[in-house]
């Protein structure tokens, strides 16, 4: 696969023999500033359909900002975002979500007042279309739609093995489970591209293993394209197909795990900076 060039729209085959499709998202020369501070400086990279793409880097490297740019929460001063082969106009986050990009958050952003079930149901809001009146009288369409989506959500609950906490308010759940519920909420949107912001932050070894398994299963079962930020190099190397390495807002490496591990700049960045 080393033969493939950046921004190529042809797919490739991973070492474990998975066929990866063409480019689904491409970031072109993205630059993001907050006042004077430059969070991201002229970064370009692409994400291929069906691959697991990792963005790594020391703290404050601008990884989260990059994710926020992708999910339309930050709007870069320069550069273009291409999605599904089209240049994406500046959009509101919810419009991005409707385009099929879902995400989880670094520090869990679940809706504390709701149950696991309801939280995951919110993931399907982009897909639920019945009008207010129909909902108000809860007759026919609304009720029917609710049931269809409940079915989908239940499949996800089953997939993530959280049946036992279905009706528990998420506030009461342990950290690891909350992370899982959040993943569920993102999955419920049946996203084309799934963004995971440090899905394993603050987890113990077993929880990390579970989570990795789920991420791989998601990619495998639903063929979802996944872009994730993660600190734990071990995990990243295990589960990701290609890795972008960032440091101080700049891109210092891009390629297969083995390639970036061999990259001197990357090594320096990691040895130089204490992360986690």
């Amino acid at each position, binding site marked *: 696969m080393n033969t493939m060039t950046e921004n190529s729209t042809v797919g490739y085959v991973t070492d474990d023999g998975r066929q990866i499709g063409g480019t689904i998202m491409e970031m072109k020369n993205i630059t993001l500033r907050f006042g004077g501070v430059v969070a991201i400086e002229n970064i370009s990279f692409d994400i291929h359909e069906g691959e697991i793409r990792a963005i790594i880097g020391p703290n404050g490297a601008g990884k989260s900002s990059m994710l926020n740019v992708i999910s339309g929460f930050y709007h870069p001063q320069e550069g273009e975002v291409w999605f599904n082969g089209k240049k994406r106009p500046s959009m509101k986050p919810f419009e991005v979500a409707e385009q099929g990009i879902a995400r989880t958050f670094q520090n869990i952003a679940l809706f504390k007042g709701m149950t696991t079930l309801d939280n995951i149901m919110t993931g399907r809001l982009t897909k639920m279309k019945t009008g207010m009146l129909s909902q108000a009288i809860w007759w026919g369409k609304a009720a029917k739609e609710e049931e269809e989506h409940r*079915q989908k959500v239940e499949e996800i609950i089953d997939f993530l093995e959280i*049946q036992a906490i279905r009706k528990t308010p998420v506030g009461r759940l342990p950290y690891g489970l909350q992370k899982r519920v959040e993943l569920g909420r993102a999955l419920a949107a049946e996203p084309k591209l799934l963004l995971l912001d440090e899905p394993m932050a603050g987890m113990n070894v077993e929880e990390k293993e579970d989570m990795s398994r789920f991420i791989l299963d998601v990619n495998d079962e639903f063929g979802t394209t996944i872009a994730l930020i993660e600190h734990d190099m071990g995990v990243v190397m295990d589960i990701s197909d290609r890795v972008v390495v960032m440091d101080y807002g700049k891109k210092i490496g891009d390629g297969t795990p083995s390639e970036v591990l061999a990259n001197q700049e990357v090594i320096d960045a990691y040895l130089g900076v204490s992360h986690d």
Partner: protein
Amino acid sequence: MAQSDAVLDSIPALLARNAVTFGDKAAYREKEYGIWQSWNWKEAAAEIEALALGFLNLGIHEGDFVAIIGRNRPYFYWAMVAAQSVGAIPVPLYQDANAEEMAYVLGHCGARFIVVEDQEQVDKVIEVQDQLHQFEHMIYIDPRGLRKYDHRRLHQFSHIQDQGRAAREEFMPELQARTARLNMDSTCVMLYTSGTTGKPKGVVLSNRNVIVTSKNSCEFDNLTENEEVLAYLPMAWVGDFIFSIGQAYWTGFCVNCPESADTMMTDLREIGPTYYFAPPRFFEGQLTSVMIRMEDAGRFKKWLFRKYMDVARKVGPAILDGKDVSFGDRLSYFLGNIFIYGPLKNTLGLSRVRIGYTAGEAIGPELFEFYRSLGINLKQLYGQTEATVFITQQPDGEVRADTVGVPSPDVEIKIEDNGEIYYRSPGVFEEYYKNPESTADTKDAEGWVATGDAGFIEKSSGHLRIIDRAKDVGKMADGGMFAPKFVENKLKFYPDILESVVFGADREYCVAFINIDLTAVGNWAERNNVAYASYQELAGHPEVYNTIQAHIEEVNKSVAQDEMLSGCQVHRFLILHKELDADDGEMTRTRKVRRKIVGEKFNDLLEALYGGKSEIYTETEVTYEDGRKGSISATLEIRDVAVVPVKQKVAAE
């Protein structure tokens, strides 16, 4: 139920009957995706037919074995019946069995088809498949993670059904022909018993075995098509087969499958079964959790609980057995039912239980009485795979902790001189698969089967009472029956007594070593502010001795009532100065006392007991937690116990 029995000579036949008679009644329910997915008998029949056709499509032959590996799910029950209706033989396996056990069983029966739940089992089978020569096709239910597997011999359950439906015209005649060929004598199922010794044996049960026993047992408890059962015990266990297939198909009641192991208790509560089986340890666990949860309750609730549990203990069982109880008691029981029993049963999910059974091992009287006194009709039965479960069971109103009831309908029982129990019944199994010799020495020419248990029929009630494993029953000097376990169990039912070891084989009379229960007796000590520094000190306390002596005398009384065992009364005892311990080799790791070793190790004490001393000084080597060895010494008091004079014994020739 008994209408048109003429054709009801196989499970598929019963299925057909149910699809007509109870077409729209729920046959199976499974908690999945948050609700109870339901199939009525019509739908179930259709599913099963589709699968059967699918089997034919895969080229299944009559007499093939179809292994079933997974937790209780409707799909597996369908698979079993589908297999039967194409003339194949279902073989349910324990899904938690490790690879080589599985390899052995699969190899032994030579299963051509294996139906499994998910990736985990698929992997397990693939791991051993090269040892399996007849194995051809594996069918899984949950496709998760299996998409990338080689599907030449691997099929998804639903796909097989689809193919079956597609090929309906083609295979229907064949299916009907095969189903029609089934009769009372054709094999219904093969169940592997994990024999205490050696490899598991495949018990072959015919339709007659299953159907007749089901019929009898259903009539015995007059089960109707309105029962609800929760299927949660291993499918490989004969009990589950009889409850969830035999009886379910005979009466047409509904089988409910829990969502997963960890939601089992909630599912139990939601369904609220009316007919319920659980092993004693399950009830024990439930009771403990009840007690623990009550610990955190407020003072008032605790008081209420205690007050009304006393009432229940006093009159509950009587009321349940329909004996006459004073109005005052009835009233306070009624109140108790509002405040405690009702809610309690409800939270435990047992409020609708009409008939509950427990079996497998002796159940403690307190435990048993606890559930009875709540008004739950919990009963005991005695059975084994070879008998298609039922040998004896307790009729309503004649329920006691210490018996296992009267012979089930059509079951004959005889007790050999050595006390071993034999039975003969329509439920008696055909044979051990590919194992004529053990078949021979379990089942004699007239069809009598040895249970391997010793026991006797209680003259007064005609109930059977189990004493012990036959091989553990010895003789006393006078030839009377010596059943230490029997006496020890009685002793151990007292919370004060942790362990007891009774000796007396080839002796004139029985003596006992006692281990007191440190927590129980410790509590007593605190309440009566008896100071003690160590187990040893507490064990030596005269008060403790008195209590224990009282217990033993109680036991002697009850032992004396069974003339066969009256010789086993304990004449003398002492309380050991140390707790029997696996580290010292006195018990097995599973905390079973090693009588012989204990006898040798404490020979001096034994001699003292039989030598009529009133106390004895002894030193014993002990192993501490950290493995160091040390020795403790003590002077132990020896007490004589009042025994009930025994009329002349039944001669044992």
